[in-house]
């Protein structure tokens, strides 16, 4: 197996909780608590999980847009976390990011041409007329009319703005893009267009994506592999088909059961998790999921032992000490891609 483009090992990001007038550190929010994964060239790894599980923090820590607390990130042979300022600036050309909110991701006081052009100027990729041409090419490539270059962000719709954000990321010719929930804020019809654009760009340019999302139907469509995050930990990591067909981790099973059925009449049992997600400032001992876990074999051991992320079957990693193979404790019919209900057949 070739070396992966991106290797993340034991990445940790704790945010200190400061209290009192002198800002004494009284605790830590364990936003990302030791995650490891690889992303191969031209591959899409989806990072899924509910709000607040640390997936966006992870994406930003990898790019050093926030400084990780510890761990290592290796990108294309560079140790990202030890790079000096200048080296990091140069490496940023290769690692880009696309944002969730198409409204705050573009500077309202700059024309979209100027926005897309910035990367070219910073890395001296093109100047003057050549840069103008390049900007028009980039806009064209993301499906915007090149004449739009002189317009301002408020003149565009959410989907169009998202395309501008993509063009900005592409301007520096990256090989890896963190897509931080790029379609979550868009209308469903526009979501599909943007997802297709991302897939076309991946095919044409050999891009690798870290696709952060909470919408599993989008993930199933775009991802090659999926990592499931819960409370700062990766609890399951597998190729997309394996994960959707045979989830091992009880949390993943519950997550998949919550995906709305694509066809009317398909009936599925929901696994309803009880309770709230615990606070990442005070995570549960042992397996972070154990207070909400409905696995029949759950016992005190789960509250004591931190489950390692193990390769349970080839390529399929999961962190659970009770479930060692994808033999379901939930009736199979309850899960995603379930057999059509009698009404339909």
């Amino acid at each position, binding site marked *: 197996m070739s070396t992966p483009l991106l290797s993340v090992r034991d990445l940790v990001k704790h945010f200190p909780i400061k209290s009192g007038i002198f800002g004494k550190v009284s605790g830590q929010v364990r936003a990302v608590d030791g995650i490891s994964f690889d992303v191969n060239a031209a591959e899409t790894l989806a990072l899924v999980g509910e709000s607040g599980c640390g997936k966006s923090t992870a994406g*930003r820590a990898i*790019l050093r*847009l926030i400084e990780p607390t510890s761990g290592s990130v290796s990108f294309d042979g560079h140790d990202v976390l030890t790079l000096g300022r200048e080296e*990091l*600036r*140069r490496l*940023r*050309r290769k*690692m*880009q*990011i696309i*944002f*969730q*909110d*198409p*409204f*705050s*991701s*573009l*500077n*309202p*006081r*700059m024309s979209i041409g100027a*926005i897309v052009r*910035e*990367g070219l100027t*910073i*890395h001296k990729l093109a100047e003057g007329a050549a840069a103008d041409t390049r900007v028009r090419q980039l806009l064209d490539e993301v499906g915007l009319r090149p004449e739009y270059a002189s317009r*301002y962000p*408020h003149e565009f*719709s*959410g989907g169009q703005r998202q395309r501008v*954000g993509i063009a*900005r990321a592409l*301007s*520096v010719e990256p090989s890896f893009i963190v897509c931080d929930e790029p379609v*979550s*804020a*868009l*209308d*469903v019809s526009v979501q599909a267009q943007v997802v297709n654009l991302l897939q076309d760009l991946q095919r044409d340019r050999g891009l690798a994506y870290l696709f952060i999302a909470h919408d599993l139907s989008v993930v199933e469509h775009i991802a090659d592999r999926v990592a499931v995050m819960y409370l700062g930990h990766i609890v399951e990591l597998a190729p997309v088909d394996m994960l959707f067909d045979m989830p091992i981790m009880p949390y993943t099973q519950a997550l998949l059961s919550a995906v709305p059925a694509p066809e009317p009449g398909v009936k599925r049992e929901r696994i309803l998790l009880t309770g709230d997600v615990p606070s990442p400032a005070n995570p549960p001992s042992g397996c972070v999921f154990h207070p909400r876990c409905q696995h029949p074999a759950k016992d005190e051991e789960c509250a004591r032992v931190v489950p390692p992320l193990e390769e349970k079957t080839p390529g399929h990693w999961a962190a659970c000490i009770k479930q060692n193979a994808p033999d379901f404790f939930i009736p199979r019919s309850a899960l995603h891609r379930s057999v059509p209900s009698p009404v339909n057949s």
Partner: protein
Amino acid sequence: MDGASVRRRLVRDTRVRIALVVLAVIALSAILAPHIAPYDPKQQLDITHLNGQPPSLAHPFGTDPFSRDVLSRLIFGTRVSLAIALSAVAIAMTFGTLFGAIAGYVGGTVDAVLMRIVDAAFSIPTLLLLIVVIALWGDIGIVSLTLLIASIGWFTVSRLVRAETLVVRNADYVVAARALGMPGWRVLVRHVLPNVVAPAIIASTLAVGNVILLEAGLSFLGIGVRPPTPSWGSIIQDGSERVSDLWWLTVFPGLAILITVFACNALGDALRDALDSGQLLSSFDDAPLSS
């Protein structure tokens, strides 16, 4: 929010139209002072027959105890008062904006130190400080007076700008600029500053009125603009000992101050309304149906 819609909103505002016309007239009379003033503002016309004369056809605003034409002094005084106010505010706004933006953007220890400086500055009673400094300094010129006033005016602006910077620095477009590898100072200049100046501009428009008042107050106390140079405050000072019989020395410059300050405040308020509602409108106008 975009410039065009803010401009449209401002032009439709009656307050703005009136304030702009008033300020334009005042500014024009300052610029054209030598051409429209009927007399030399410093010339004593006839100390025996023309001292302290009430308004007449020859001297519409009367004359002062030194037999100088009050209308001419008022017109030339506009120059001095406006020049001091506008330059003091411009200096204070520039410095305050940079100070606040750097504190907010860099954050951490730098922010803490810079903001404690502002806190300390806020705790000094400014008028008292000015009086003490001028008393120690002795005779000061218009330039020094302007710098002094500017030096006590930038705190408020820096606070406002810092607060705005704290919001903007976390906006995705700032993160995107950093992700592109843009050096910090350039992110500050290109992305942060253009998006935080709105509150500074509003505060400055309002501050012009205050500085006119401050300068008038200092001149009235005899520690601002030195005689024989006319400013609105110093004209009032010339008549201060005989207010009851030389009322025209108080009323006309007083009205000039009142109207100018009123116009500045109206403009500042309208600007604030336009910029605020601009932000609200744009976030509602464009909100996606989903999410």
